[in-house]
């Protein structure tokens, strides 16, 4: 069987790896019941590449306009050694302007493309982690009234099921009384004090990952975790302008969820146990999509429509779930229609089977009597109503013809 690591290595083969970042860690909460996603994430597989080999290449791009705007806004916020940012911090944290006016502005690395080759001119990841740590130490030791250090592009390590992920918050501010605030710069607008709840939720989940990583780093540096504030400073454009505005996001809930998810990721052994020995997703670049599909299918998925916006394999899993049959008619798994509908079906997953029960074409198994009864009744009511309406319409139509 081998150890967990060798099994994961085998599953991945020579597929490109993809390290966790704040977005992927945050996405762990999106469908935590999915074993397929759990295994892929544990093995660090780049799901975009795998999806392409499955013949299900997906467009997960971002508009060039959005990228340009995002960069421009971030640059604006950080301009002049973070002068604008200091102003916002004073506003949003309710501290006097002179408490944040001064302090080091540490640029800790600049943009590093995801999984970029080691570049001599650019600092490596561990080097940036070390720089971040020393900047943090410096800032905290130096912490005194009137000093606010801003750490730009710090790099924080976070242990995700045994592998080291690197997270890059937009900025961190080290504040009075030695409290650290994570600053998240987002380019969606806050209009009249409100913003898109889904975008806010996603920002809060990402910020929670940064806070967690920062808490771990602080613990390593010998500081209590509550040095890190769970009130994250969110900086967004205000109304229809480019002018930044700041708001506090209380991420205690998201932090608890992230902790929970990471604690449960450790159970990857349980996910691996039932898989066939020797299973690998890497069948070479030329492998037939069907062969890759068979290998992926060995790990059960828990597809729900929400996956379409959070997982690169979603279209593959959807096709698989739609094609799923258990000796009844077609239709696939009820989960493809959403989770609400499953609440109406008790434990019946297969659409064909649910319809056969409704049509009285098959007998319910033990424990299914109730749902079968409800489905038969619902079907009878549907028939009654639709037949009635059809009869009335054709009568009405006939009447209209006769009248003319």
């Amino acid at each position, binding site marked *: 069987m081998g150890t967990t690591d060798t099994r994961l290595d085998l599953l991945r083969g020579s597929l490109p790896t993809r390290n966790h970042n704040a977005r992927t860690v945050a996405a762990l909460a*999106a469908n935590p019941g999915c074993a397929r996603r759990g295994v892929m994430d544990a093995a660090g597989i780049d799901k975009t590449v795998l999806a392409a080999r499955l013949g299900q290449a997906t467009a997960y791009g971002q508009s060039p306009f959005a990228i340009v705007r995002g960069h421009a806004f971030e640059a604006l916020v950080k301009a002049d050694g973070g002068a604008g940012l200091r102003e916002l911090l004073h506003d949003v944290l309710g501290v006097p302007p002179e408490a944040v006016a001064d302090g080091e502005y540490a640029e800790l690395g600049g943009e590093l493309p995801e999984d970029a080759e080691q570049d001599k001119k650019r600092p490596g990841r561990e080097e940036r982690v070390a720089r971040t740590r020393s900047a943090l130490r410096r800032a905290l030791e130096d912490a005194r009234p009137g000093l606010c250090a801003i750490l730009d592009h710090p790099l924080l390590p976070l242990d995700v099921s045994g592998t080291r992920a690197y997270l890059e918050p937009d900025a961190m501010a080290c504040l009075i009384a030695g409290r650290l605030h994570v600053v998240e710069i987002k380019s969606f607008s806050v209009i009249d004090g*409100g913003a898109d709840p889904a975008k806010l*939720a996603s920002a809060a989940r990402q910020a929670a990952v940064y806070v967690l990583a920062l808490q771990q780093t602080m613990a390593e540096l010998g500081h209590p975790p509550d040095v890190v504030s769970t009130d994250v400073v969110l900086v967004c454009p205000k109304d229809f302008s480019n002018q930044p505005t700041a*708001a506090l996001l209380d991420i*205690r809930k998201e932090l608890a969820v992230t902790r929970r998810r990471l604690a449960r990721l450790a159970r990857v052994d349980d996910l691996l146990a039932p898989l066939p020995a020797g299973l690998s997703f890497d069948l070479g670049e030329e492998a037939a999509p069907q062969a890759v599909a068979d290998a992926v299918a060995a790990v059960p998925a828990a597809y729900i429509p929400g996956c379409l916006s959070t997982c690169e394999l979603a279209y593959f899993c959807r096709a698989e779930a739609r094609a799923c049959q258990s000796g009844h008619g077609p239709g696939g798994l009820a989960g493809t229609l959403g989770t609400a509908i*499953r609440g109406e079906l008790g434990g019946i997953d297969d659409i064909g089977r649910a319809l056969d029960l409704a049509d009285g074409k098959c007998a319910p198994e033990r424990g299914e009597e109730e749902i079968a009864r*409800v489905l038969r009744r619902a079907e009878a009511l549907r028939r009654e109503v639709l037949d009635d309406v059809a009869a009335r319409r054709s009568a009405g139509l006939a009447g209209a013809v006769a009248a003319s």
Partner: protein
Amino acid sequence: MNAGAMQPGSDAAAEQGQDQDPGKAAGRVTAAVLADLASGRHRGVVVDSPPGAGKSTLVVRAAAEIAGRGDRLMIVAQTNNQVDDLLLRLAEEHPGLVLGRLSAADYRPGEELAATPVQIAGKAADLDGCEIVVSTAAKWALVDDRRWAWAIVDEAYQMRSDALLLVARLFDRALFVGDPGQLDPFATVDAAQWHGLTYDPSQSAVAVLRRHNPDLPVHRLPVSWRLPATAAPLVSEAFYPFTPFRSGTGRRDRALGFEPGRKCDPYDQVVDIAAESGWGMLELPSGFTLPSDDETVRTVAELAARVLARRGTAVSERGENALDAARIAVGVSHREQRSRVEAALVRLNGEIPGARDIVVDTANRLQGREFDVTVFLHPLSGRRDATAFHLETGRLCVLASRHRHACLVVARAGIPELLDAHPSAEPVHLGLPVSFPDGWEANQAVLGTLADNRVQL
């Protein structure tokens, strides 16, 4: 579960002290509340009351004090039953007070209330001679041209802030009393548009009141006189993490005894466990079912009927009483479950006389009520997916905090797995205080205790 209501307040923290005697601790808070009311320094006073912490006692006492000073007092309750209950207690404990009940035209008082001298009228003008007038928030909203020096707003955490907006013009000062841990008020349309406004009409009355008046004193009743020593720590930790309370009684002050079970089946076993530990869980095999699942419904009804059939005796600081049907309640989440459990109890009535008189209701309607033993159908039992409705902390809190002696739970196995697989993707709103505790955490805490008191069917 109410946002922003459960932050530790400095007043509350000071009052909490480390009093060994619960009666003294509670008395000190009551005294502080009354002193704040008398001081004239505050327009409003808020009192948080965990389950069974003597909220009604406080209301009656404060009402008598305010009326005793010669101030005209209006009391705002949320339902007609609450109005009647309050009036009965006021009439009984303070027979000298002139009481009035403002009612809709088609209101008929029950026998008990009709026997009191409480004046009943449809117009406020007809009650001008009353020292205290009690009515529902909905009825108060229709009153015009009258003003009261004081109001007591009862169940203020279950009142929506728009309802408070409609009645706040009627009083100068007010005492707001309620339980922040129970079910929040809700809106029947999407209210996201107003989240983040300090006066969000879909939030609770207290949440809005406190955001506009952050300096109001907030007191917290520190002792539950209802919940037994077996329940208070769990309910406090799971549902009131920032505002702990304790039980007013010790483990030896309460006892629940049953005649020996004749069948010695899992039903008898779990009843015995609950008699001993205060908690019991009867677990059905795992499986996904409809909310109306027949097997679950029958199990709930049979368990409640068994509690009755075992002819229990409840001993408490109030003395000894037989555990008859009126002292037993069944709690569910859906109306359909209520109908089905009721029907099942009617069927069991032949075998176990009195079974049909066991109270069955949804969590919403059990709020504020008290029984010796409760049996509840776990909101997440048999569910394929957890939803916000079924995860709502307030629902579980209501169900797990109605009892004086023991609480029994019926559930299908598999709830921990359900919680683990539940995606967390709640939308976030700027300026909307985050509500605590999280449904997930609260559920885990309760399940942890239940797991130790579990019998499998």
